[in-house]
């Protein structure tokens, strides 16, 4: 090919190459969002899935006290799990990024393998570990710390433990790039000036990374917000989150319009909290600068 060919490819090349990615993402990513919005306004019919209409009944139901309470429970559980992930994940990632290469790779393989574990498998194993017959309470009885074995699942503790488990690997992987690119001289300077490692971490590392941390935290929050299997199988009805209700309506009750309206409510709540987290990250950074 000649250099002239190169310049003419500039016109056609990008668009030709982008055709498939753009088509796939528009149809299969934007498409579902548009369809959810549309179906949330549709009317439910018994014989088919739904029929086109513009009604607000679904939103009226989605905003009833029952579902609002579920929304509050969902946001509270997701916030709690995301905060625990932040408190464990950030120092863990920081220490991880400073390990020698060989050990770093071992930890990264463990983190990736945990990330890939199916939510179903995670729920199954935590239900075993917290059960009365084969769970951790047996070990505590054996150690003499508990009088008799107890069942800790289902319950709030089980839901939180398992949610943190599925979200922690994601937390570590989102924090890893900014944390590992952090200039080590910053921390060394703080140490030279007499700061303890913990103090250097809190007063130098955390403020410098505030923006990246806020972004990662928002991502983890959204991920936990949309979890279905764990709240459903490790929670009591009191911990059944909005995703449990959405799946219930969509699959078991065949009420897709209500499921869609609930999904829009969940999306709106998720967006609102994420924006608040991101704004917090930005504001603090400006005042530090």
């Amino acid at each position, binding site marked *: 090919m000649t250099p002239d060919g190169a310049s003419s490819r500039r016109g056609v*090349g*990008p668009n030709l190459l*982008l055709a*498939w*990615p*753009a088509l*796939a*993402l528009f149809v*299969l990513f934007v*498409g*579902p*969002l548009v*369809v*959810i919005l549309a*179906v949330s306004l549709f009317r439910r019919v018994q014989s088919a899935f739904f029929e086109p209409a513009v009604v607000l009944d679904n939103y009226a139901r989605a905003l009833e006290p029952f579902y609002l309470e579920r929304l509050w429970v969902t946001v509270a559980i997701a916030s709690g799990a995301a905060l625990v992930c932040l408190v*464990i994940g950030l120092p*863990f990632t920081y*220490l*991880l990024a400073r390990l020698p*290469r060989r050990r*770093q*790779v071992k*930890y*990264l*393989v*463990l983190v*990736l*393998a945990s990330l890939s574990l*199916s*939510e*179903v*498998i*995670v*729920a*199954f*194993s935590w239900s*075993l*570990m917290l059960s009365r*017959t*084969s*769970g951790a309470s047996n070990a505590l009885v054996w150690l003499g710390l508990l009088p008799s074995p107890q069942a800790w699942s289902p319950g709030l503790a089980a839901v939180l433990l398992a949610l943190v*488990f599925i979200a*922690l690997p994601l937390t570590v*992987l989102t924090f890893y*790039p900014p944390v590992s690119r952090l200039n080590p001289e910053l921390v060394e300077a703080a140490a030279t000036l007499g700061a303890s490692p913990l103090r250097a971490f809190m007063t130098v590392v955390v403020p410098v990374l505030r923006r990246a941390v806020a972004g990662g935290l928002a*991502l983890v929050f*959204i*991920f936990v917000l*949309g979890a*279905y*299997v764990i709240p459903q*199988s490790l929670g009591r009805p009191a911990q059944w989150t909005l995703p449990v209700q959405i*799946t219930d309506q*969509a699959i078991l009750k065949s009420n*897709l319009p209500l*499921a*869609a309206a609930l999904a829009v409510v*969940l*999306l709106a709540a*998720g967006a609102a909290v994420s924006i608040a987290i991101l704004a917090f990250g930005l504001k603090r950074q400006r005042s530090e600068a």
Partner: protein
Amino acid sequence: MRVWWRRAFMGLVALYLLLPIVVIAGVSLNAKKVLFFPPQGVSLRWYEEFFTSSDWSAPAVRSLIVAVLAGLIAVSIALPLAYAVWRWGTRWARAVMLLGLAPFALPPVVTALGALVLWIVLRSFGQPYSVVLSHGVFLVTLPLATITLGFASLNREVVEAAVTMGATPGTVARTVVWPNLRPYVLAGYIFAFVLSLNEYIIAYMTVGFTFETLPVKIFNSLRYGYSPVMAAISLLFFLVATALFAVVGRVGDLPRLLGAEARSD
């Protein structure tokens, strides 16, 4: 320096991540159909059941088919997209890129519900290919992230030197770009493959009743009673994922593949 508390903290987190695997491995060895930990008696019959009973091997094969194809779809979207952004960086290319990074920023249940209603509207609800395409697009973020890093690691001057010395675009792609890019593409594919293999909620909503994948099968079985065979499968899945990531760590520079800068040590 107080090294011990750092080690203790790292060790505790690693223990937390490994604990379920230890319990699952123990339970899978029970001699009878009970879920005791520590196991009572030792037997490999549940592993045998997984490989011999079509109740379990058929969903496993379905999951494998979906994951192999979904990974290919994800890479087929990510590779040209990342290339277009690196090569031309037009506004349009960057807009599509943003779209490709967005699926991970949606609550998973919304992604699944969206896939369900989309395939109903497209009159393909329950078709096996629907879950392949939905997984492919949902997981595109992973190869897109690694391949973008791969292009960023390419030295543009080397590419330009090859062009100046008369190499055709095909030769440049084959001899300069691809060898550098290969570990990033492979890693992206493996990430998408393993996550698709383990994905539950999208598979359940799109093809849960027509093309039962392994995670769906396990979850359905949990409702009707536990069997150590589920523990055996779970352990095998964890081992497969660990082995694949260990391979990535061996052939490629795992810290760099995950976004760290090149380090000298």
